[in-house]
């Protein structure tokens, strides 16, 4: 196990696969404009797993859909920013150019394997259609690849299984198939949008191990969207915490888990049920995220923050760089702010 971990670490190179700069995505609705993503910046290195965590509605999925080119326009609009994939700006491509990247260089795994597969097409067809569209290869060759992929994700009797329909598979098996479909064209970037949320806990562990194994074998970069900190602890290299359409804190896994600096990150970590503390009650973060129809001028977490100051209400904090990887948007980092007591920290 230890040896494996070392290998994994080594694989992350300095090459940037993806750079997201100041990404802003809005949706025009009858009620007004919802600012779902309000300026997101992050880089992704080759072979790395970046987890994006946050509550429902914080913009995680919109961010990943924007990278994947799946924001329906209208009503969605990418108002600002760039998504550079290996130097190419995905926001500037035409739909046709984008389709040459979708499923080939970037692919996606969806949350619910029960609905992500088309019930009326065989697994074989759903596996091979992307391959045959993009790589222009024959039926037999595509079938061979499909069988290899099913073996890789651990589905027994792949030859026979190819002819079957989704309803003939269990939930865990379907998620394996969804993963196989995502990987069949050898993508460099895999976006997994809550890939284990809809699965049993035992299956979750298997799927996460599958991710690790695939990453070792294929050296791909993974963006993992989740609100499950257990999943994050298991497979992420870096963690970005999103709140109200912004990344409020980003850093290595150790930095986020052991020295979280943003009050929201700390709240998230505190709200995880713990088995080792028996009579302890759960500590939820009180309140709800702000309405993104009219997001607050200052820090969006102010209303729920125990350490909120006057300035938080009016001005969005600067980004403070705490280490090479660790960045946090919080006024508490300002020298003028009072120092937080150590007992408040999670550790």
């Amino acid at each position, binding site marked *: 196990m230890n040896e494996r971990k070392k290998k994994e670490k080594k694989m992350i190179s300095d090459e940037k696969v993806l750079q997201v700069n100041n990404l802003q995505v809005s949706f025009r609705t009858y009620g007004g404009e919802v600012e779902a993503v309000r300026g997101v910046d992050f880089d992704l290195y080759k072979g790395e797993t970046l987890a994006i965590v946050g509550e429902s509605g914080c913009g995680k999925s919109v961010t990943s859909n924007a990278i994947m080119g799946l924001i329906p326009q209208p009503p969605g609009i990418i108002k600002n920013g760039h998504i550079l994939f290996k130097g190419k700006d995905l926001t500037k491509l035409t739909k046709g150019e984008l389709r040459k990247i979708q499923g080939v260089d970037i692919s996606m795994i969806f949350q619910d394997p029960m609905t992500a597969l*088309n019930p009326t097409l065989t697994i074989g067809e759903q596996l091979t*259609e992307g391959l045959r*569209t993009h790589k222009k290869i024959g039926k037999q060759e595509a079938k061979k690849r499909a069988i290899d992929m099913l073996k890789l994700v651990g589905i027994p009797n792949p030859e026979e299984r190819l002819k079957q329909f989704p*309803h003939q598979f269990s939930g865990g098996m379907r998620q394996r198939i969804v993963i196989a*479909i995502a990987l069949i064209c050898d993508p460099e970037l895999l976006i997994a949008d809550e890939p284990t949320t809809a699965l049993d806990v035992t299956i979750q562990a298997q799927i996460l191990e599958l991710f690790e194994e695939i990453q070792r074998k294929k050296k791909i970069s993974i963006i993992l969207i989740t609100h499950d900190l257990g999943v994050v602890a298991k497979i992420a290299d870096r963690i970005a915490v999103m709140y109200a359409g912004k990344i409020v804190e980003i850093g290595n896994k150790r930095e986020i888990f052991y020295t979280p600096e943003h009050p929201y990150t700390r709240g998230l970590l505190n709200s995880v049920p713990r088995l080792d503390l028996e009579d302890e009650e759960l500590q939820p973060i009180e309140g709800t995220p702000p309405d993104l129809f009219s997001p607050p001028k200052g820090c969006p977490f102010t209303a729920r923050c125990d350490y909120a100051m006057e300035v938080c209400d009016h001005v969005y904090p600067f980004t403070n760089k705490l280490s090479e990887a660790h960045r946090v948007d919080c006024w508490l980092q300002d020298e003028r702010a009072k120092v937080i007591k150590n007992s408040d920290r999670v550790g």
Partner: protein
Amino acid sequence: MAKYIIKRFLMMIATILIIATLTFALMHTIPGSPFDDERTSNPTIQANLEKFYKLDEPMHIQYLYYLKSIVTFDFGPSIKKPNESVNELLARGFPISFELGMVTILVALLSGVTLGTFAALRHNGIIDYTAMTFAVVGISVPNFVLATLLIQQIAVNLEWLPPATWSSPLHMILPTLALATGPTAIIARLTRSSMLEVLTQDYIKMARAKGLSPVRIVVRHALRNALMPVVTIMGTMLAGILTGTFVIERIFAIPGMGKYFVESINNRDYPVIMGSTVFYSAFLVFMLFLVDIVYGFLDPRIKLHRKEGDA
């Protein structure tokens, strides 16, 4: 599969028998007899006629003769047109009605599905609003009103198309239009709403994420799933269209089955009533059976048969 088909087939026979029995009972509860309006007939001739058509026998014997005629599919001569057998009437009228019905179904399916699909793809756009306005009009205007309007405007005023009879493909256009508009509208609305639903499904998003062309996504991934409700109503719609042809055939003077069917009831022409009803119901039941089979092909989740190991 074979087992299922045999089972369904037996059920079909039972259904037809029930319909036949009901028809027989209803037919004989209508007051009057086939010979009511023939003033010249004297009692002896009438008695001989009744004897010839076995109408003097007790009801249950008549019923048995009737069942025999169904099984052998020989309904004997018509009472009103003694020189023609019911089978001959059916053989002459049915192909025409069938042609009109099938062309109508085809037109309705093709245009309805196309219209509905485009309306869904351009949701809340001009195409959508136009198509749905057309659909509301199409559903609300009865086909006989539309038929008369078409005859008056296109055939009589503009003289573009022949107003009646059934002798060339040109003659088919107006009756088909009149008959197909309603079903087209219903199919278009159904396709649109189920298409809209299907397009929001995860597997469509996944198909997009695979980088497939929009045409392939719509045709291969969306349409097949969106057509399920359309197939479901096809069975009943067929019945509607086929009975609808009776009225339309009347208006356009088309020598199909509708004419004989309606006349036979007015005349108490028992053999024709029985023959055409049994034939029609057999046809419809068979169509419904076909629809079920198609359903199974479209959606593999619907099991027509139990396989080992399946729940």
